[in-house]
């Protein structure tokens, strides 16, 4: 291969890369990506199905560095929090982090509740009820085999739930992509690392940081594909989702999209309020926008991790604090799921005409928070069934609600990830500070 050809190829790759980087900006998302996805999905359904498959393949590719990222981020975070507390008594980072996690969780759930009370998801027109009813026909039927069924062990379900949380072997859990086990295993590993002597832990922490940096870098590079991914997903969603259902559930969809925009607004304000003049000078644009777009275009809140950490490190925030706060808020306190679950619970209660008394509203907030947090480690459609716990509490039938939510989940997963991303940015901005002593 001649030198000229090599140069041409390098230039082409650089140009392609810069186009993809440019397309990740919010205005291009609104002006090019979203309309293009809609047009392809509407007018070229045959191609859209192939694009949908390509979209899911790209998601698989983007998810590839997720497990090592989660593993290392959680271990380093826990280690950082526990060692920071020991090394600097005056540092309130851990307390600030926990407090801001709690405050943001409840603020997000109250915001979601207020929006859903205003938007009234689940209160349907007669036509809407017919559309939903038609969608439910046959799918929600209960088929029983009474005399030939095996009697289940009542303890089996509890055991399997516990088994899904308790780590068995951190490496095999990571290899099998058992995110929940990886998180719990990493929490334990982080704790273990913090109680061993620093001269023993230091090389390990250094190795973990290297793996973390590598994962972040790979993820960052793969995220260049997010504009293509988004076009594929929007086109695929338009073709595959029953439009009648989207119209019938328009209130839920709008409510979640408005919540996402409201969260973006809140995060923009918080970044302005909690960054110094010097930090603002370093930022060309508000980082909330780019985090929001990354979440929205990938449907993965974890994909926001590199953008958040890189931005905050760039403006001079302590990297250990940034990593700790970002990973904890993205992995455990996933506010996108909390907001989504609150709206979904209100939708279910409205659909089954449950009166929303003040006590019920408080219960909605608590259950929204609990079920949202319990979805830690779950992604995409796997988040939806966590709402069943709340529905059971309110004695509202879970299967039809879950079925409806699953039907529109390919769209809902995008704003959910965007909310988790921007709220994690807020928590990191508030809890991290510039002048902390680095741990490890």
């Amino acid at each position: 291969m001649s030198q000229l050809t090599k140069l041409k190829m390098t230039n082409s790759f650089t140009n392609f890369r810069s186009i993809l980087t440019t397309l990740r900006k919010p205005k291009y998302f609104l002006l090019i990506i979203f309309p293009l996805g809609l047009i392809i999905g509407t007018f070229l359904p045959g191609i859209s199905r192939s694009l949908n498959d390509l979209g899911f393949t790209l998601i698989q590719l983007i998810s590839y560095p997720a497990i090592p990222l989660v593993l290392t981020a959680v271990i380093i975070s826990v280690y950082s929090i526990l060692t920071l507390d020991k090394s600097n008594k005056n540092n309130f980072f851990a307390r600030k982090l926990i407090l801001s996690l709690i405050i943001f969780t409840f603020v997000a759930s109250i915001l979601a509740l207020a929006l859903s009370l205003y938007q009234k998801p689940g209160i349907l027109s007669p036509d809407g009820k017919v559309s939903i009813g038609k969608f439910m026909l046959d799918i929600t039927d209960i088929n029983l085999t009474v005399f030939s069924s095996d009697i289940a062990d009542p303890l089996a379900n509890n055991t399997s739930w516990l088994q899904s949380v308790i780590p068995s072997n951190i490496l095999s859990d990571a290899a099998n992509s058992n995110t929940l086990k990886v998180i719990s295993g990493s929490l334990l590993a982080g704790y273990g690392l913090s109680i061993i002597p620093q001269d023993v832990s230091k090389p390990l922490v250094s190795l973990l940081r290297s793996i973390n940096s590598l994962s972040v870098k790979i993820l960052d590079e793969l995220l260049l594909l997010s504009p293509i991914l988004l076009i594929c997903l929007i086109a695929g969603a338009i073709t595959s989702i029953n439009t009648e259902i989207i119209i019938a559930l328009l209130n839920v969809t709008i409510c979640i999209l408005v919540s996402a925009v409201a969260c973006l607004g809140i995060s923009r304000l918080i970044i302005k309020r909690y960054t110094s003049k010097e930090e603002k000078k370093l930022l060309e644009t508000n980082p909330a926008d780019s985090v929001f777009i990354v979440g929205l275009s990938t449907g993965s809140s974890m994909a926001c991790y590199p953008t958040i950490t890189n931005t905050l490190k760039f403006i001079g925030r302590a990297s250990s604090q940034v990593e700790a706060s970002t990973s904890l808020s993205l992995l455990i306190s996933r506010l996108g799921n909390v907001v989504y679950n609150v709206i979904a619970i209100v939708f279910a209660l409205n659909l089954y005409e449950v009166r929303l008394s003040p006590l019920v509203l408080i219960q909605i907030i608590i259950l929204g928070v609990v079920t949202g947090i319990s979805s830690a480690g779950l992604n995409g459609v796997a988040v939806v069934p966590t709402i069943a716990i709340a529905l059971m509490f309110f004695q509202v039938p879970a299967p039809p609600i879950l079925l409806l939510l699953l039907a529109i989940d390919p769209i809902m997963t995008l704003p959910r990830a965007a909310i988790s991303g921007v709220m994690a940015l807020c928590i990191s901005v508030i809890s991290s500070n510039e002048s902390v002593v680095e741990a490890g």
Partner: protein
Amino acid sequence: MKFFYLLRNFIFIFFLFFLFQLNQKVYAAENIYIDKIIQRGYLNVGLPPYTTPPFYYLDPKDKKLKGYDIDIIEGFAKEIGVRVVFDRDSTSFNNLVKRSGAGDFDMAIGKLGTTFKRMSDAHPHEYMNFRHALLSNRKFVNSLGVAPDNPNYGNELLNSSMKIGFIDRSAYDTYANSLFSNAEKIGYKNWAECKNALLKGKVDAIYRDATEIKKIVYQKPNLSIEYVPILFDDIIDQKSIFLSTEANTYLSDILDYYLKRKEIKTDSEIMKDYSSFYEPIN
């Protein structure tokens, strides 16, 4: 000459009479019961006093009885070479079977379920095979505290103390008493009253075969939000034509031969073949 002329005419008349007698022998059946039907000129069939489309109903256009059951029995009558006269004076499904057993008509049809009690009244001949089904309020389903996909759900449901509605003195009256031992069982005059009771919250579920249960939600899909069909895949309602002992002695073979040539329809097949009856109505 005149004598020969008279003899020739006598022989001709005798020959014609002989031929007529011979002809009469051809149209008479050796099976005395069928012969009785042929002599009568029609098959006397008992039909429930209700309207159950697509099985038996009055066509609003020509006011004639139509439906799958009507086609089955008219097809059988055609094979014998007679028409069908329906008797719709029975007061209930059970009464219809009892009357059939007593010989009030040649046979009874009308989506009649088979039970041990009915088998002691008349002789059943299977022609359809439907799953038992409930249309239940979703809140009741939820209140059982066991997820429907749990293998124990069926037993929980059968042993629950739900309020269950069905048509009084129907096969489902009998089935409910044997299957739902702890349930509060309420019999209603007809299916419309059963549906009304469910919609008004007087009962937790109504009980009949899958074709009737699914029809409710197919015709009014918005009901799917609040109500759910529960289909018992292994509890089958065998739908039969019922005959008295006398009729069964003489008609059993020919009826079974006829039904064997027709396939035994399942609820899914009926809902597919008669899909226009399972569409939303305004």
